[in-house]
């Protein structure tokens, strides 16, 4: 399978934060969700990929090309939506589309027009009068109107109300399903990522701690509920975030297939129960365990 993004030993140092020599790859045609708490390094990583920041080491290759040496060529094929939306806000959406169209080789004015219509963005209204949600949608319309091969979304739904957030994520899901685009979606809202991602990467404190397919991740990570004495101590020791409560004890395993046999008798007797976990649960365990 072809990698659309390859990162090797990427480093960025700030006085209070270090992006610590990360290696990361993203497969072409898939949606990669980048999850992490605030300040984990998600935005820094995406900005370094976009060459919006200067790295302190390492290499980024997008479409097999060095992202610094081929910045213009690469950006021509990337649709980017940042956490903050910057526009000439005394202008309107129609002017903005016309303006950016000069910079993209494959700008499609008809796609842009139809996206504005779909998102109910008035083309002649000044952008300074737009709500945050409208600005995100406008940003998305621009990002998708030049037929990008890679779409990078950095916390696009941050600060949006749940209705607009769902609308944006649903649109993205439909769009990526229909067009088989590669998407990198960074967010600390795990629900957004759960809905559309094929692969998940967890980033904590400037390091990538997990990167694997969503299905694999969710089949490996399970929550185990067990009554006292029903689970072998050697297994209990492998569990993360073990908590005791009125009905027994619970803990998370990150390698369910490895302990499945050890749970068989407990599962049959009803002393052990296995529950699927959400991406949030994993994030909390990773942050606590860090």
């Amino acid at each position, binding site marked *: 399978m072809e990698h659309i993004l390859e990162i090797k030993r990427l480093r960025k140092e700030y006085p209070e934060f270090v992006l610590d020599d990360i290696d990361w790859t993203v497969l072409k045609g898939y949606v990669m969700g980048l999850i992490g708490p605030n300040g984990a390094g998600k935005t820094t990583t995406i900005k370094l990929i976009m060459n919006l*920041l200067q790295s302190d080491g390492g290499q980024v290759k997008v479409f097999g090309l060095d992202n610094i040496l081929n*910045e213009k060529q690469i*950006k*021509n094929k990337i649709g980017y939506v940042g956490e903050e939306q*910057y526009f000439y*806000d005394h202008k309107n959406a129609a002017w903005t589309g016309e303006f950016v169209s000069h910079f993209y080789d494959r700008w499609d004015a008809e796609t842009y027009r139809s996206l504005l219509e779909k998102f109910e963005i008035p083309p002649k209204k000044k952008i300074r009068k737009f709500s945050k949600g409208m600005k995100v949608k406008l940003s998305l319309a621009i990002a998708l109107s030049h037929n990008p091969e890679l779409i990078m979304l950095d916390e696009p739904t941050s600060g949006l109300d749940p209705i607009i957030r769902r609308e944006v994520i649903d649109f993205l899901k439909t769009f990526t399903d229909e067009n088989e685009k590669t998407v990198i979606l960074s967010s600390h809202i795990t629900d957004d990522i759960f809905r559309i991602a094929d692969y998940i990467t967890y980033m904590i404190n400037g390091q990538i701690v997990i990167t694997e397919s969503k299905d694999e991740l969710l089949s490996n990570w399970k929550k185990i509920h067990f009554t006292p004495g029903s689970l072998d101590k050697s297994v209990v020791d492998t569990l993360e975030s073990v908590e005791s409560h009125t009905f027994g004890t619970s803990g998370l395993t990150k390698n369910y297939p490895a302990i499945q046999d050890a749970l068989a008798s407990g599962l049959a007797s009803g002393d052990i129960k296995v529950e699927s976990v959400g991406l949030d649960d994993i994030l909390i365990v990773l942050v606590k365990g860090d």
Partner: protein
Amino acid sequence: MKKFSFWYFLYPGLLLAFGLPMFNSDRLTGPDPFSLSFASYLAPMIWLVLGAMYSHEQMESKANGYNFLRILPIEPAQIVKAKFTIVFISVAIYVGGCCAAFALISTDPEYLIPSCGYLITHGNICLVAAALLYLGIFRYGFSRFGKYVLIAWIFLFVSPIPFRIFFLKPRGITDSEIMQFMRGPYWILVTVICLVGYYFLMKLAVKRLKARYA
């Protein structure tokens, strides 16, 4: 914006409207670079070029325009070149237009060459000033450096008066001596030096913008 444009162009428009007939009257005594007619040609250039630069950068700053441009497939060099080219074209159109207007009134090279030379020299100053101000803006950002653009704008706008009072007069430099200077090849040399300087300042500005983005 339309309202702003009206007031923005009203002042230089009035100066030019009054200045053109006065250039005609200057012909009787020879062009005087400190006469009202010349001031009425120089001031609008500074007003229009540096004023436009100030308002554009203010707008870029308010709209975070450089951040917007940064995500587009456009290199910092292209952004800088576009801004420097606009300044150059503005000065060239203004100086060219004024020289053409002078030529309509008088084609006598005795008056036309020094008059145009004087304007071109000021155009050069305007270019170099704009380039230096851009360097400051790219280095420190408009929010920090904008006030210096404003100061430079006002200073250059009124500079001929203090220059005359505090520099030329005490040294006994007369207007005719300046005109003599302008009749010579020196302003061509000054122009070449300024244009080469402008080019290198543009290159430096690209580095500054790249460094700011990093």
